[in-house]
Protein backbone atom coordinates (compact mmCIF):
# COMPACT_ATOMS: atom_id res chain seq x y z
CA UNK A 1 0.00 0.00 0.00
CA UNK A 2 2.76 2.38 0.98
CA UNK A 3 4.66 1.53 -2.16
CA UNK A 4 1.57 2.18 -4.23
CA UNK A 5 1.05 5.62 -2.74
CA UNK A 6 4.71 6.60 -2.97
CA UNK A 7 5.30 9.67 -5.11
CA UNK A 8 1.62 10.65 -5.13
CA UNK A 9 0.88 14.10 -3.81
CA UNK A 10 -2.18 14.96 -1.77
CA UNK A 11 -3.68 16.69 -4.80
CA UNK A 12 -3.40 13.47 -6.82
CA UNK A 13 -5.25 11.55 -4.12
CA UNK A 14 -7.92 14.25 -3.96
CA UNK A 15 -8.30 14.00 -7.72
CA UNK A 16 -8.99 10.28 -7.48
CA UNK A 17 -11.50 10.90 -4.69
CA UNK A 18 -13.37 13.52 -6.75
CA UNK A 19 -13.24 11.36 -9.89
CA UNK A 20 -14.63 8.41 -7.92
CA UNK A 21 -17.45 10.59 -6.55
CA UNK A 22 -18.28 11.74 -10.08
CA UNK A 23 -18.34 8.26 -11.58
CA UNK A 24 -20.16 6.56 -8.69
CA UNK A 25 -22.93 9.13 -8.65
CA UNK A 26 -23.17 9.01 -12.45
CA UNK A 27 -23.69 5.26 -12.11
CA UNK A 28 -26.35 6.07 -9.52
CA UNK A 29 -28.12 8.27 -12.09
CA UNK A 30 -28.12 5.49 -14.66
CA UNK A 31 -28.98 2.47 -12.51
CA UNK A 32 -31.23 3.89 -9.79
CA UNK A 33 -34.78 2.57 -9.75
CA UNK A 34 -36.34 5.81 -8.55
CA UNK A 35 -36.24 8.93 -10.68
CA UNK A 36 -35.93 11.11 -7.56
CA UNK A 37 -32.82 9.20 -6.46
CA UNK A 38 -31.45 9.65 -9.99
CA UNK A 39 -31.97 13.41 -9.72
CA UNK A 40 -30.14 13.59 -6.40
CA UNK A 41 -27.30 11.40 -7.68
CA UNK A 42 -26.99 13.89 -10.53
CA UNK A 43 -26.20 16.48 -7.84
CA UNK A 44 -23.09 14.46 -6.90
CA UNK A 45 -22.05 14.18 -10.54
CA UNK A 46 -22.35 17.92 -11.16
CA UNK A 47 -20.46 18.69 -7.95
CA UNK A 48 -17.72 16.22 -8.85
CA UNK A 49 -17.35 17.67 -12.33
CA UNK A 50 -17.07 21.15 -10.78
CA UNK A 51 -14.26 19.74 -8.59
CA UNK A 52 -12.49 18.39 -11.68
CA UNK A 53 -12.72 21.87 -13.23
CA UNK A 54 -11.00 23.28 -10.13
CA UNK A 55 -8.13 20.80 -10.66
CA UNK A 56 -7.81 22.10 -14.21
CA UNK A 57 -7.47 25.74 -13.06
CA UNK A 58 -10.90 26.59 -14.46
CA UNK A 59 -12.28 28.33 -11.38
CA UNK A 60 -14.88 30.45 -13.21
CA UNK A 61 -16.25 27.43 -15.04
CA UNK A 62 -16.49 25.52 -11.76
CA UNK A 63 -18.63 28.28 -10.22
CA UNK A 64 -20.72 28.55 -13.40
CA UNK A 65 -21.19 24.78 -13.29
CA UNK A 66 -22.48 24.91 -9.71
CA UNK A 67 -24.74 27.90 -10.38
CA UNK A 68 -26.31 26.77 -13.66
CA UNK A 69 -26.30 22.98 -13.39
CA UNK A 70 -27.03 22.56 -9.69
CA UNK A 71 -28.96 25.78 -9.14
CA UNK A 72 -30.80 25.81 -12.45
CA UNK A 73 -31.01 22.63 -14.47
CA UNK A 74 -31.19 20.22 -11.53
CA UNK A 75 -33.94 22.22 -9.83
CA UNK A 76 -35.80 22.35 -13.15
CA UNK A 77 -35.47 18.57 -13.49
CA UNK A 78 -36.77 18.07 -9.94
CA UNK A 79 -39.71 20.38 -10.64
CA UNK A 80 -40.53 18.38 -13.76
CA UNK A 81 -40.32 15.12 -11.77
CA UNK A 82 -42.64 16.47 -9.09
CA UNK A 83 -45.13 17.88 -11.60
CA UNK A 84 -45.38 14.75 -13.71
CA UNK A 85 -45.75 12.20 -10.91
CA UNK A 86 -47.95 11.97 -7.90
CA UNK A 87 -45.44 12.13 -5.08
CA UNK A 88 -47.33 9.78 -2.77
CA UNK A 89 -47.76 7.13 -5.41
CA UNK A 90 -45.23 4.33 -5.92
CA UNK A 91 -45.15 5.30 -9.56
CA UNK A 92 -42.10 7.54 -9.17
CA UNK A 93 -40.06 4.78 -10.74
CA UNK A 94 -38.05 4.84 -13.87
CA UNK A 95 -37.63 1.50 -15.53
CA UNK A 96 -34.86 0.52 -17.87
CA UNK A 97 -35.27 -1.75 -20.84
CA UNK A 98 -32.63 -4.07 -22.28
CA UNK A 99 -29.96 -2.94 -19.83
CA UNK A 100 -28.05 -6.17 -20.38
CA UNK A 101 -27.78 -5.39 -24.08
CA UNK A 102 -26.60 -1.81 -23.51
CA UNK A 103 -23.91 -2.55 -20.93
CA UNK A 104 -21.37 -4.63 -22.95
CA UNK A 105 -20.95 -1.99 -25.70
CA UNK A 106 -20.58 0.67 -22.99
CA UNK A 107 -17.84 -1.31 -21.23
CA UNK A 108 -16.06 -1.85 -24.55
CA UNK A 109 -16.33 1.89 -25.27
CA UNK A 110 -14.85 2.77 -21.86
CA UNK A 111 -11.96 0.32 -22.39
CA UNK A 112 -11.34 1.69 -25.88
CA UNK A 113 -11.27 5.30 -24.72
CA UNK A 114 -8.98 4.34 -21.83
CA UNK A 115 -6.49 2.56 -24.08
CA UNK A 116 -6.52 5.40 -26.62
CA UNK A 117 -6.08 8.05 -23.92
CA UNK A 118 -3.14 6.17 -22.37
CA UNK A 119 -1.33 5.09 -25.54
CA UNK A 120 -1.61 8.31 -27.56
CA UNK A 121 1.41 10.60 -27.42
CA UNK A 122 -0.39 13.87 -26.66
CA UNK A 123 1.61 17.00 -27.39
CA UNK A 124 1.52 18.13 -23.78
CA UNK A 125 2.63 21.53 -22.57
CA UNK A 126 5.86 21.50 -20.57
CA UNK A 127 4.26 23.33 -17.64
CA UNK A 128 0.47 23.73 -17.57
CA UNK A 129 -0.57 27.16 -16.31
CA UNK A 130 -2.21 26.76 -12.92
CA UNK A 131 -3.04 30.45 -12.44
CA UNK A 132 -6.67 31.60 -12.41
CA UNK A 133 -7.81 32.45 -15.91
CA UNK A 134 -10.92 34.54 -15.21
CA UNK A 135 -9.55 37.85 -16.52
CA UNK A 136 -8.44 36.23 -19.79
CA UNK A 137 -11.84 34.57 -20.09
CA UNK A 138 -13.58 37.94 -19.73
CA UNK A 139 -11.30 39.49 -22.36
CA UNK A 140 -12.07 36.60 -24.72
CA UNK A 141 -15.84 37.05 -24.31
CA UNK A 142 -15.71 40.79 -24.99
CA UNK A 143 -13.08 40.44 -27.73
CA UNK A 144 -12.67 37.46 -30.02
CA UNK A 145 -15.92 35.75 -29.02
CA UNK A 146 -18.20 38.80 -28.79
CA UNK A 147 -20.54 37.80 -31.63
CA UNK A 148 -21.10 34.18 -30.46
CA UNK A 149 -21.62 35.53 -26.95
CA UNK A 150 -24.40 37.88 -28.07
CA UNK A 151 -25.94 35.18 -30.26
CA UNK A 152 -25.93 32.85 -27.24
CA UNK A 153 -27.90 35.41 -25.22
CA UNK A 154 -30.41 35.67 -28.07
CA UNK A 155 -30.72 31.87 -28.18
CA UNK A 156 -31.37 31.83 -24.43
CA UNK A 157 -34.15 34.41 -24.68
CA UNK A 158 -35.84 32.64 -27.59
CA UNK A 159 -35.52 29.24 -25.87
CA UNK A 160 -36.95 30.45 -22.56
CA UNK A 161 -39.89 32.28 -24.21
CA UNK A 162 -40.53 29.17 -26.30
CA UNK A 163 -40.46 26.99 -23.19
CA UNK A 164 -43.01 29.22 -21.46
CA UNK A 165 -45.27 29.16 -24.51
CA UNK A 166 -45.13 25.37 -24.69
CA UNK A 167 -45.56 24.66 -21.00
CA UNK A 168 -48.41 27.04 -20.14
CA UNK A 169 -51.99 25.92 -20.06
CA UNK A 170 -54.32 27.23 -22.75
CA UNK A 171 -56.37 29.91 -20.96
CA UNK A 172 -57.18 32.17 -23.90
CA UNK A 173 -60.86 31.15 -23.94
CA UNK A 174 -61.40 31.99 -20.30
CA UNK A 175 -59.82 35.40 -20.68
CA UNK A 176 -61.98 36.39 -23.65
CA UNK A 177 -65.12 35.22 -21.85
CA UNK A 178 -64.12 37.26 -18.84
CA UNK A 179 -63.56 40.30 -21.06
CA UNK A 180 -67.00 39.81 -22.63
CA UNK A 181 -68.61 39.67 -19.20
CA UNK A 182 -66.85 42.84 -18.15
CA UNK A 183 -67.88 44.65 -21.32
CA UNK A 184 -71.50 43.71 -20.68
Amino acid sequence: MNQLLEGLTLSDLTFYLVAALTIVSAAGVVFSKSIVYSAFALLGTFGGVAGLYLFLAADTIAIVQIMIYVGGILVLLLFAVMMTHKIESVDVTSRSMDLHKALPPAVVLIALIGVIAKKTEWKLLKAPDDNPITAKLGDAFLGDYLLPFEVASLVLVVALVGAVVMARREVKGDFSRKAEKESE
Partner: protein
Amino acid sequence: MEFLKVGLWQYVVVSGVLFSLGLVCVATRKNAIAVLMGVELILNSANINFIAFSHYVSGAVGGQVFTVFVIILAAAEAAIALAIVLAIFNRFRTIEGDVATTLKE
Protein backbone atom coordinates in the same frame (compact mmCIF):
# COMPACT_ATOMS: atom_id res chain seq x y z
CA MET B 1 4.10 5.26 -9.14
CA GLU B 2 4.43 7.11 -12.42
CA PHE B 3 1.27 5.39 -13.64
CA LEU B 4 -1.01 7.02 -11.08
CA LYS B 5 0.37 10.55 -11.44
CA VAL B 6 -2.54 12.73 -12.54
CA GLY B 7 -2.19 13.86 -16.13
CA LEU B 8 -4.33 14.37 -19.19
CA TRP B 9 -5.30 10.76 -19.73
CA GLN B 10 -7.04 10.35 -16.37
CA TYR B 11 -9.39 13.19 -17.28
CA VAL B 12 -10.06 11.64 -20.67
CA VAL B 13 -10.90 8.34 -18.98
CA VAL B 14 -13.27 10.01 -16.49
CA SER B 15 -14.98 11.81 -19.34
CA GLY B 16 -15.19 8.58 -21.32
CA VAL B 17 -16.85 6.81 -18.41
CA LEU B 18 -19.35 9.66 -17.99
CA PHE B 19 -20.07 9.58 -21.74
CA SER B 20 -20.67 5.83 -21.76
CA LEU B 21 -22.93 5.99 -18.70
CA GLY B 22 -24.88 8.83 -20.32
CA LEU B 23 -25.22 6.81 -23.51
CA VAL B 24 -26.53 3.80 -21.56
CA CYS B 25 -28.98 6.11 -19.76
CA VAL B 26 -30.28 7.60 -23.02
CA ALA B 27 -30.55 4.19 -24.68
CA THR B 28 -32.28 2.22 -21.93
CA ARG B 29 -34.47 4.59 -19.93
CA LYS B 30 -38.17 4.86 -20.67
CA ASN B 31 -38.80 7.91 -18.52
CA ALA B 32 -38.25 11.06 -20.62
CA ILE B 33 -36.74 12.99 -17.70
CA ALA B 34 -34.20 10.19 -17.08
CA VAL B 35 -33.25 10.37 -20.77
CA LEU B 36 -32.63 14.10 -20.26
CA MET B 37 -30.36 13.31 -17.32
CA GLY B 38 -28.34 11.04 -19.62
CA VAL B 39 -27.99 13.90 -22.09
CA GLU B 40 -26.69 16.13 -19.29
CA LEU B 41 -24.09 13.47 -18.41
CA ILE B 42 -22.92 13.39 -22.03
CA LEU B 43 -22.64 17.18 -22.20
CA ASN B 44 -20.66 17.22 -18.95
CA SER B 45 -18.23 14.64 -20.30
CA ALA B 46 -17.65 16.80 -23.38
CA ASN B 47 -17.01 19.80 -21.12
CA ILE B 48 -14.39 17.89 -19.11
CA ASN B 49 -12.59 17.07 -22.34
CA PHE B 50 -12.70 20.69 -23.55
CA ILE B 51 -11.20 22.01 -20.32
CA ALA B 52 -8.66 19.20 -19.86
CA PHE B 53 -7.28 19.63 -23.36
CA SER B 54 -7.23 23.41 -23.06
CA HIS B 55 -5.30 23.06 -19.79
CA TYR B 56 -2.79 20.37 -20.76
CA VAL B 57 -2.41 20.78 -24.53
CA SER B 58 -3.24 24.24 -25.87
CA GLY B 59 -2.83 26.43 -22.79
CA ALA B 60 -5.22 28.96 -24.35
CA VAL B 61 -8.60 30.18 -23.13
CA GLY B 62 -10.61 28.74 -26.05
CA GLY B 63 -11.62 25.48 -24.37
CA GLN B 64 -13.17 27.29 -21.43
CA VAL B 65 -15.04 29.67 -23.76
CA PHE B 66 -16.55 26.71 -25.57
CA THR B 67 -17.48 25.11 -22.27
CA VAL B 68 -19.44 28.22 -21.34
CA PHE B 69 -21.31 28.04 -24.65
CA VAL B 70 -22.06 24.36 -24.08
CA ILE B 71 -23.43 25.16 -20.62
CA ILE B 72 -25.61 27.96 -22.05
CA LEU B 73 -27.01 25.65 -24.71
CA ALA B 74 -27.53 22.91 -22.11
CA ALA B 75 -29.61 25.30 -20.03
CA ALA B 76 -31.71 26.27 -23.06
CA GLU B 77 -32.09 22.62 -24.03
CA ALA B 78 -33.18 21.61 -20.52
CA ALA B 79 -35.82 24.37 -20.41
CA ILE B 80 -37.28 23.46 -23.82
CA ALA B 81 -37.12 19.72 -23.24
CA LEU B 82 -38.86 19.95 -19.87
CA ALA B 83 -41.56 22.15 -21.41
CA ILE B 84 -42.09 19.44 -24.03
CA VAL B 85 -42.18 16.81 -21.27
CA LEU B 86 -44.88 18.78 -19.45
CA ALA B 87 -46.87 19.16 -22.68
CA ILE B 88 -46.61 15.41 -23.32
CA PHE B 89 -47.70 14.73 -19.76
CA ASN B 90 -50.75 16.96 -20.18
CA ARG B 91 -51.69 15.11 -23.37
CA PHE B 92 -50.94 11.47 -22.46
CA ARG B 93 -50.87 11.58 -18.60
CA THR B 94 -47.50 9.80 -18.74
CA ILE B 95 -43.94 10.57 -19.80
CA GLU B 96 -42.84 7.05 -20.71
CA GLY B 97 -41.21 7.26 -24.10
CA ASP B 98 -42.89 4.13 -25.47
CA VAL B 99 -46.45 5.31 -24.76
CA ALA B 100 -46.46 8.64 -26.60
CA THR B 101 -46.36 7.23 -30.13
CA THR B 102 -48.87 9.41 -31.95
CA LEU B 103 -46.28 10.65 -34.43
CA LYS B 104 -45.42 7.07 -35.38
CA GLU B 105 -48.79 6.37 -36.95
